[in-house]
């Protein structure tokens, strides 16, 4: 007998995967988030998160850390991507590769190496937890910022830059009024790629003997203590935050597509 599929049947594996690994766990998290240890419905977990200065402090701290990391990444990545995209250097793909290459080396190995370097420079690395976290995460996430920026800058039509110059704009104005606005989609996707993971990636902090807590470490510690209810609630809150941030950034990139100039400058 010949096997025949219609298109709807072809999506079955994907649907099964989606239900088993996305929807079901999500429901489990929601269930745990709104119950207590005895399985009764409660909003205590939610209330306790927002009433504890400890957890709120962690939220703010991770947010500050993530924003700083993203900014540092952006400041390093933008000029790099700009130079790479604009250079006539024939081997620029090799240069780009050099920035991407660290991604191929095991993450643990890289952070361990970084730890040794920082120890050599600072002595006791535990003394500068925030700075070290930023350095570690920047090192880890930089390629994710460079790539989308490079892509959007490389496809920038050189004619547009010449046209702006032709109309009287000096180099700086060409950058401000043409290059920057047109690379905004790249900036936004770079930010999305860096901001969200750096709020939860506590492994970097742990490996650098860091005593500070970010959202990821908070969730980890609750789950390690078998307090699944509070852990789930924090995961859920983080999920909502991520959802909101994604919504905002999507709004931004949508409006650039629609040529809304108010967003541009």
């Amino acid at each position, binding site marked *: 007998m010949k096997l025949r599929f219609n298109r709807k049947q072809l999506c079955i594996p994907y649907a099964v995967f989606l239900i088993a690994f996305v929807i079901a766990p999500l429901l489990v998290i929601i269930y745990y988030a709104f119950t207590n240890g005895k399985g009764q419905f409660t909003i205590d977990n939610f209330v306790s998160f927002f009433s504890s200065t400890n957890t709120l402090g962690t939220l703010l701290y991770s947010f500050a850390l993530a924003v700083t990391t993203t900014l540092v990444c952006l400041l390093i990545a933008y000029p790099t991507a700009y130079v790479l995209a604009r250079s006539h250097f024939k081997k620029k793909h090799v240069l780009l590769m050099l920035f991407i290459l660290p991604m191929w080396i095991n993450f643990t190995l890289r952070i361990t190496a970084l730890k040794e370097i920082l120890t050599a420079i600072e002595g006791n690395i535990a003394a500068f937890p925030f700075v070290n976290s930023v350095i570690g995460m920047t090192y880890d996430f930089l390629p994710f910022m460079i790539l989308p920026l490079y892509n959007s800058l490389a496809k920038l*039509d050189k004619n547009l830059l010449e046209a*702006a110059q032709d109309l009287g704009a000096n180099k700086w104005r060409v950058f401000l009024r043409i290059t920057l606005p047109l690379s905004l989609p790249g900036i936004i996707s770079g930010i999305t790629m860096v901001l969200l993971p750096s709020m939860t990636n506590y492994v970097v902090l742990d490996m650098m003997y860091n005593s500070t807590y970010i959202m990821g470490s908070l969730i980890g510690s609750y789950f390690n203590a078998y307090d699944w209810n509070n852990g789930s609630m924090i995961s859920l809150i983080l999920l909502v935050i991520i959802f909101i941030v994604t919504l905002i950034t999507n709004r931004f990139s949508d409006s650039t597509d629609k040529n809304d100039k108010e967003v541009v400058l």
Partner: protein
Amino acid sequence: MTNTPYIIELIDVKKVFDDETIAVDNFNLQVKKGEFVTFLGPSGCGKTTTLRMIAGFDLPTSGKILLNGEDISNLPPNKRPVNTVFQKYALFPHLNVYENIAFGLRLKRVDNTYKNDAGESYVKRERLTKKEIDRKVKKALEMVDLEGFEKRSIDTLSGGQQQRIAIARAIVNEPEILLLDEPLGALDLKMRKEMQIELKNMHRRLGITFIYVTHDQEEALTMSDKVVVINDGEIQQVGTPTEIYNEPINTFVADFIGESNIFNGAVTGKFKVKFCGATFECVDDYEINQLVDVVVRPEDIIICKPGEGQLKGKVISTVFKGVHYEITVEMGKFEIVIQSTAYAEPGSTIGMRIEPDGIHLMKPVYTINRFTGEITKNNTVKFGDGEFECDVTKLYPGSHLDDEGYLITAKGEKLDLTGTAVNVEVDTHDITMSDDEDAGGVTGTIISMIYKGDHYRYIVRTEENEEDYVLSCPDLWNTDDYVSLIIPKDKIKLTLKHSDDAED
């Protein structure tokens, strides 16, 4: 400002790119204020590079560009009172129509004169007010017939509308010169014709100088006051459209502008020229026995009864072209194309008459290939990027080669010719082409071909040093074909270089 009738002057401008290709060379041009000048030439001839040098995107390697008598060669584009309409429009996709047009105005600073309390006037550099910008943008949109499009975004516009916005964006700044880089290339034929007329009208109304780049000869002839025909980075001819069409200066111009029959001919007497086996009266005066290229426009050949007229031939095809018929006639080994409103039956024999003013004579650019070369160890000669077998004994009358390859002169002297500098001459008929890369002494690409009635004249350019070989060949090849060139041993004429110098 220096007093000069020319708004822009290019003096000995040369542009060499990083990879050492010469894009523009020996470029001298003067443009009067208000003229409509067109740079016409095949793609890659350097016309766009020249335009980019005037705009300031490329800087000349040597030479000067003067604007109103002042040297602007090294000024950046934003400091030049020149605006460009780009081939692919280059409108800013993130700005709407209004902002695109206002882009230049917002950057502009103007001198405004005020009076202070004491009654003294002083000058202040200021931005244009919002009102002024509004007014100017509106006027520019009217100019291109797109009123009310201010708020539209660029990607909702058709190609023709984008083109108009690009023009509006340039003229709104009131530049002294408007540069247009094949602006109509992306439009369909009907649209292109309309825009040609509109651009011409706009030029008349605005009174600013237009420099227009195109590879479309018809466009150049219809629109321009002055046409600059460019090939291979050099100006071939500058003139009004009528001059360019009626009195082409060389076969390239004749072939590029309009249809032409081009033949090899020879001057046989005063105002007499012989080609296609017949003698014609002509209006150009050359020395007797001078070899010439003869150009005859297809519409200058008049069909008459067989026996009348100077030529007779058999019609091989007649194609209706709307206004006229295009008739191809065979006369022995020659082929001639006629445009005529009269019909000629294919297969019939007709006579053809050419009036003296329909025959244009020009000195042939190439009749012989000249190179300087060097004899190698194996008694071959190296020239023009290649290496060929040759007969070195011809350098010394009565000499011969011994067993070891040394040359023994008539007096019995033994000479080692390795490294001897020689002049090499090869006739255009003595070179043949082959598509087997190893068959000849040098390989290159066909860069030009012109049909000359019974044969084609090809120019083959080598890759390494861009040496040009000119050859005549009856077979049809295509431009950009990669060929190797074969020159028979006895057709390479060698002379010693130093003996030549001594004669001079």
